[in-house]
Each structure stands twice: as C-alpha cells, then as structure tokens.
C-alpha cells in the first residue's frame, strides 16, 4: 500500500466512522418512542438479507450496468440458510455453500465470475 493509498484509507474512514458512531454517541437515544425502537429491532434482518440478496442476485458490469443474475450461488445461499435454520450451525452452512459453488464451477455447471 503506497502513501497515497493510506490517505485514501483515512478519507474512507472519515466517511465511514460517522455512520457507525452517530447514533451510538448521540444523547437521548434511550428516550426514543416505542415504535422507533420496534423499527430498529427489525433493521438487522432487513439489512443482512438485503446484503445477501444483492450479492447473489445483482451483477454489475465493468461499465456500471446492473443486471439480474440467476445462478448456482442462489442454491448455495439457500442451502446455507436451510442448514443454519435446521442445525443452527453457520460454519457448516458456509462450508456447504462454498463446496456447492466450487464443485459447480469445477465441473462447468456454473460460470466463474470475472
């Protein structure tokens, strides 16, 4: 990492830290109305599934055009979901997901991402 990129990292920190700290450091957060606290309880599932869904369903090309993607990654993520829901074992789910994708790509059933 060059000196230039350290400066870039510092700038990236400068726009990331406020998002992380604002609500944690703001006074009066404990006096929020009940409906707001209920809303915040639901943020986790929504954001995490949003991250997962966008990661496997949306592909952005080099010229920044997003397209809908259907592939073996769906199966892998679903299998991981099922294992975690049934067995409560995330590590096993991750191993299964990686195995499915690796095998599918190795035997030519799925394309290798660029």
């Amino acid at each position, binding site marked *: 990492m060059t000196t230039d990129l350290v400066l870039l990292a510092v700038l990236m920190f400068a726009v990331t830290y406020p998002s992380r700290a604002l609500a944690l450091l703001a006074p009066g957060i404990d006096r929020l109305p009940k409906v707001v606290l209920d809303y915040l309880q639901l943020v986790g599932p929504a954001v*995490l599934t949003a991250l997962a869904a966008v990661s496997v369903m949306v592909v952005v090309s080099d010229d920044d055009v997003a397209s809908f993607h259907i592939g073996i990654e769906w199966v892998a993520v679903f299998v991981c979901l099922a294992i975690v829901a049934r067995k409560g074992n995330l590590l096993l789910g991750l191993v299964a997901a990686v195995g499915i994708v690796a095998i599918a790509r190795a035997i030519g059933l799925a394309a290798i991402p660029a």
Partner: protein
Amino acid sequence: MSVIVFAGAAQFAAVGYVASGLPWPGIILLTFLLNARHLLYSAALAPWFRDLPFARRAVMAHVLTDEAFALSISHFRRLGRTDEWGYWVAAVAVTFIPWNLATIAGVALGAQIPDPARLGIDIIFPAAMIGLAVGLITGRRELVAAIVGAGVAVAVALVSSPSIGIVLGGLVGPLAGLLVPKATTEAGDLATEPQP
C-alpha cells in the same frame, strides 16, 4: 486499510475502483453510500449501550460491522441484557483480528492462488449474511422485514446502484415489518428490550 477503514465491502469495492482509475471523490462517495447502513446498526445497538462511557462507545463504533452487529444483537436478545464483553468478542476477537490477519495472509500468499473465484470463496459473504440474519429472525415481523428488505434492495440495485439498494432495503424492510401485528407470545419478544 483493513485497520483504518475496517469495512470489507467498501474495501473490496475500493480496490476495484482504484485499479480501474476512478477518481478519489467518486471512491469516497461510494464508500459513504456503501457504509451508510452502519447508521442503522448503530441506532439499533444504541439503546443497549446507553449506560456505557462515551469514550468506550466511540471505540466500539469503529469496530461495528455487519458481523459484529448480527452476532452481538442476537446475543443481547438471547440474554435479555447488554453484554459488553460479548460485543468486544464479536467485534474484535471474531471479526477485527481475523480480518486483519487474513488481510496480511492475502498480501503474502494471495498471488499463489491462481483463481480464487474457482474455489467459491466469493459465496462466503452472502452466505454468512443470510446465516447471520437467520439468527435475528424470531417472529413474523422480522421475517417480513427480511423478505421485503431483500426484495426492495434487489429492485433498487437494478435501477440505481447496489449501495443505494442495500440502504433502502434496510430502511423499507423494517417499515413493512411494523405493519405485521406483534404476537404477544412471539419467540424472543420479551428479550428484545434492553434491560438495565
């Protein structure tokens, strides 16, 4: 970058942007959008940490990631109270230290792996996110928030950008969840409020 920024998705994106020659202001803006979801995590965790000293919360904020949030908030809900050590374990021992060690390993050894995509490593992130989400889904409200959040995120990502899609999914999903009547016997219902 792994120590200073400590935000995996933004780091992956930044490496690609730098390699493609995108000007820095564009990289900074995209980093801000990509990491804006942390505001939601921060707000969700704030009631649990309200009694902790300001300086400690300031440090906690730097190590707040998707993984730290999901692991710690499901832990707090299970306990029905805040467990500060639990947060440090989730954020530092389980996430920050391994992430930085893996970064060093990647720099040292990455070139010897001819094609990492062939190994299916790229599926770990979405699979981990969905697995962590499962731990937070304790009732119909959470389930609806998760499904709507994912749907909105994908739809918006297709017409704008993935970063905006993720943030909007995270904002709209919980609104949909609130429309579902709260079952009084819903699992985890009593454990979702922070206890003093």
